[in-house]
């Protein structure tokens, strides 16, 4: 538990992730090769973070 958080605190990380996802969505449209790789990483990030947060706090 933490003290009451402000809207900025609540939405800072989600905003960054949304921007990264959008970059990923557009990148593979623009080109091939590296552009595709940027997409994989940027859109893979939400999946990775999900697994990270769930597994880190999983009960034994």
């Amino acid at each position, binding site marked *: 538990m*933490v003290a009451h*958080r402000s809207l900025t605190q609540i939405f800072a990380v989600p905003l960054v992730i*949304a921007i990264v996802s959008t970059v990923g969505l557009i990148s593979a449209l623009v080109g091939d090769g590296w*552009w595709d790789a940027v997409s994989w990483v940027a859109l893979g990030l939400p999946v990775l973070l999900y697994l*990270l947060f769930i597994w880190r706090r999983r009960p034994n």
Partner: protein
Amino acid sequence: MTATTKSLRRWGAVHKWTSLICTLFMLLLCITGLPLIFHDEIDDLLHSQVKPAEAPAGTPPANLDHLLANALARAPGRVPHFLIWDRDEPGAVWVSVGPTIDADPTNNLLVRMDTHTGAYLDSPDVTGRFTYIMLKLHTDMFAGLPGKLFLGLMGILFCVAIISGIVVYAPSMRKLRFGAYRAQRRRVVRWLDVHNLAGILLVAWTLVVGFTGVINTWADLVLKMWQFGQLAEMTAQYKDRPVPTKLTSLNGAVEVARHAVPGMTPSFVAFPGTLFSSKSHYAVFLHGDTPLTSRLLKPALIDAETGTLTDSRDMPWYVSTLYVSQPLHFGDYGGMPLKIVWALLDILTIFILVTGVYLWMRRRKAGVSVERAIANAASIDNPALTS
């Protein structure tokens, strides 16, 4: 009650109702969409195809008139509607034939031909395939245009649910760090955390895939708009001309189109009298060669009586929007790794839907609605809900 609380309650109600109405259909779409991401691979696995002859690089393509004649010989009594170059297999060309020129093309027979020899390969009946059934369930639930538009409406509700979800995420997270997962708590708390975490992580992706899906449901309408708009404009001078009795060379028409639009590659040809052309023209649609421009088609209209170019224009914005929205919905524009990421995101979306329904049922039973939970942000720690 403060104005903020009141407005949050309203957002909570919007989130609850838009979600509840669309959830069942979104589940159907997520589940049928999952195999569709890999439809090429599944088709290759389940169905064998005749392979085109090995052609060394630089082999010229067969004359299209010859290829077309060979295709029609395999489909006696039918007329060609479209000639389509296979996007993934450069050795194959498809000829779509129907009983008459104005028959519904969705029931057409597809004849697969060898690009380089012009020989017949096969004409698979795709309608019995697993991927076809998934596609029909996914696009219109076997209910035609009304089914499509209905799913589009569900997609709009889904987008509203996502946006209202962002708003109600705030009161839910007032006392929690980003990514909080209270593993030691009861299921209702854990699933609330899963719902919040997956929901907020996937916001951009679900919004884009949801909204581009909605745009795709309007494809038939967009085509009609183009037909009565730009296409009618381009062929206005032909409106009262009789339909040509004998068509000029198809191969010649494609050559004229290639020269008229340098740097672009033919994607498909619509024969005179089909939805994509006028009664007097071959419409040759060409595409560019980057991932983006390969989706944007440019038609060149070739007079089917004289074989000369009538007009070629870029498609209007509403058609381009539709074409660009397709890869963003399908996830087929960044190789196999992107498809896999797409599938994982799809599975997480299923988690969001299932946990959402569960939370609604539990809260209803406990008499704690989303709105009330928001009005009293501490109610997620309500003893009725948590241990």
